[in-house]
């Protein structure tokens, strides 16, 4: 019994050590003190994103699926960091992000957006991202509810203009790019984001065990 307890203690302290690597604090410089995102740096809220999606995006940056466009300065910032990290460091970073306590985000309402129109537009999104913007691991679609509206606008624009979803081997990105291209203009993007913004934030979910 004592031995089992000791093993358990050692294991949990190892996990703790992993998630407390000072290096992982790097994430919080850009993404905010609790990984809640930072508008000034254009860094998204990581706390709503499940492990599998965070992992997938590290791969996307490494594969040049994100950050390769010449003018995508913010994407390039993250890409440079992703390129310096090995698989173990990526897992440490994800574990570190998971340990951050949720933070209440400031509400910023876009008064020029048409939420009703956004709701109509969102119907084509919900097949993958879920009716509540909760995401779908099987379809590799991230949660959207609880993400910063400026970040959603930025990413829809990135898909639309080809900064994302423009590489042959990025099949999920390509699918998203088609939907983003179906949004005719900035107003449509603003409307659909305003609707997503109105959805109650779902807790981080579908934490798939590896």
């Amino acid at each position, binding site marked *: 019994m004592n031995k089992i307890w000791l093993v358990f203690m050692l294991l949990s302290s190892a996990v703790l050590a992993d998630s407390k690597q000072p290096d992982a604090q790097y994430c919080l*410089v850009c993404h905010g*003190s609790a990984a809640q995102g*930072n508008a000034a740096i254009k860094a998204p809220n990581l706390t709503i994103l499940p492990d599998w999606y965070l992992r997938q995006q590290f791969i996307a940056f490494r594969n040049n699926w994100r950050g390769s466009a010449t003018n995508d*300065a913010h994407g390039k910032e993250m890409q440079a960091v992703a390129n310096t990290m090995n698989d173990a460091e990526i897992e440490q970073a994800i574990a570190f992000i998971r340990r951050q306590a949720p933070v209440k985000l400031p509400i910023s309402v876009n008064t020029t957006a048409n939420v009703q129109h956004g709701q109509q537009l969102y119907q084509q999104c919900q097949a993958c991202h879920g009716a509540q913007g909760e995401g779908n691991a099987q379809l590799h679609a991230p949660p959207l509810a609880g993400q910063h509206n400026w970040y959603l606008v930025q990413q829809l624009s990135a898909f639309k203009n080809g900064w994302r979803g423009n590489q042959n081997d990025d099949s999920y990105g390509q699918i998203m790019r088609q939907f983003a291209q179906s949004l005719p203009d900035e107003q449509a993007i603003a409307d659909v984001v305003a609707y997503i913004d109105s959805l109650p934030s779902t807790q981080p979910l579908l934490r798939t065990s590896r």
Partner: protein
Amino acid sequence: MSNYFKAPLTRRQCLSLLAKAGSSSAVLGAAGIFGLTNTPVNASPVTLKPLQGKNRKVLILGAGISGLTAAYELERAGYHCTILEASHRIGGRVLTLRRGDFIDELGSPQICPFDDAPNLYFNAGAARIPAHHTGILHYCRTLGVELQLFSNHNKNCYTQDDAAFNGQPVRIREYEADMRGFIGELLAKSATSGAVLDQPFDEQDLDKFIQFAQAYGDLDSSLTYRGTDRAGYAAGGVTTAGILKQPRPLPELLRSDFCAGAMHFAEIADQAPALMTPSGGMDSIVKAFLRQLTTPVQLHCQVSNIQLQPQGVAITYLKQGESYTEQADYCLNCIPAQLVSGIENNLPADYVTIMRQLGRGKLTKIGLQAKQRFWEQEDIYSGISWTKQDITQIWYPHHDAFKAKGILLGAYSWEPQISDRFAAMTHQQRLATAIAQGTKVHANYAQHIENGVSVCWQRMNHMLGCGAVWPEELQKTGFQLLQAPAGNHYLMGDQLSMHPGWQEGAVRSAWHALADIERREALRSTGAQA
């Protein structure tokens, strides 16, 4: 006009060309990102009244120049300071790189590869001090920082522009002499033709004015520019008679953008000679502060929460993965605003909204170690060469002439798009670019360069920018709000000055906050509400 004008030009064309030569304000505005062109007036150093037994605690977030200034002044008056610094080093954007120094750029970490020698250092951040920056000079004087002369302007340096002179570098001396000759001749001949100035202008004034134009351009007795020894001689000039260089045709001079911008760089109040810089590197100022401080600066302390309280401020920070909270009467916050906006806080909403709108200054500097001081063979000692390529500038060391090796500044760009291009490269690509572009200024550049460092300030960990960029409208509406305390919390640093990117801005912002603390302490001691 003289035969100096190889292509026929009408008076109107001349005037419009002159307008081009004079329309430097936009370019200078960009060049002046490291300081607005207005000259700050002298300020008296802040003197805090000693606390005389009262117990006051101050938390200082960030150990750059503003934080160090505040800590030094507060300690002297008996305040108890705690200094928390997020990064691995002290000094903020006062960063002097020497062999073995770690450059903590997100995604591009480097170790400085320079040889280990006292003269081989690179000021990757602050590099020069104008004489009217009396705040930072006050500390240089009182803390014993030895200064050397530093110059942005050296007529023996080059200007290079692919659009002019077949892309060949031209000595600034020659370019400026010819440009002044042309302008002088235009002025003198316009004046003699009578149709010049609106205001009362008598014969004596006119004579003086023509003398000025003649001296300005070094014109001959017929008020014609035929070349000048200001440009240096083509041959002779010491034991034999000097032979003047042939002036370059005006239209060729105007094909270079030099006349519309960089030629006037050293006219900017903050950039004009004579400037100064500490011997041995700008971090001599940081070391001087540290010699005085009794409180150690705590490194690797990353602030995660700022909570205003009725009687003070509580700060939570992460250190080696552990979370700690400290409370104090006052908090002096020198963290870049763009990072504060990502830290949990209960600061007023309008305060945080302004911080989110501040831009991140994008600046890149590249330092290169040269195994020979080849510039000395070209009569260059200190100063800046200019090129229209992305590297923009090459600086030559102002110190340690004739030593075996030297550190050049191989690139300095403050244009956001250019700095983005450098940031997108790997460190090795940046060095290769700096060397390739420098080769247009110095033909054998590549064979002289041994190694180098690159610093993209918008990517530097715990900073992510160099100098807050205030949109003009926001500065009008938001600057004073951000400068004022929120409860017992003060935001500081060069970001809260009209001199972003200058140490003077950092010192004065600290003095501004300390003066307010002094006022509140005086009120407290009289029992009044602070």
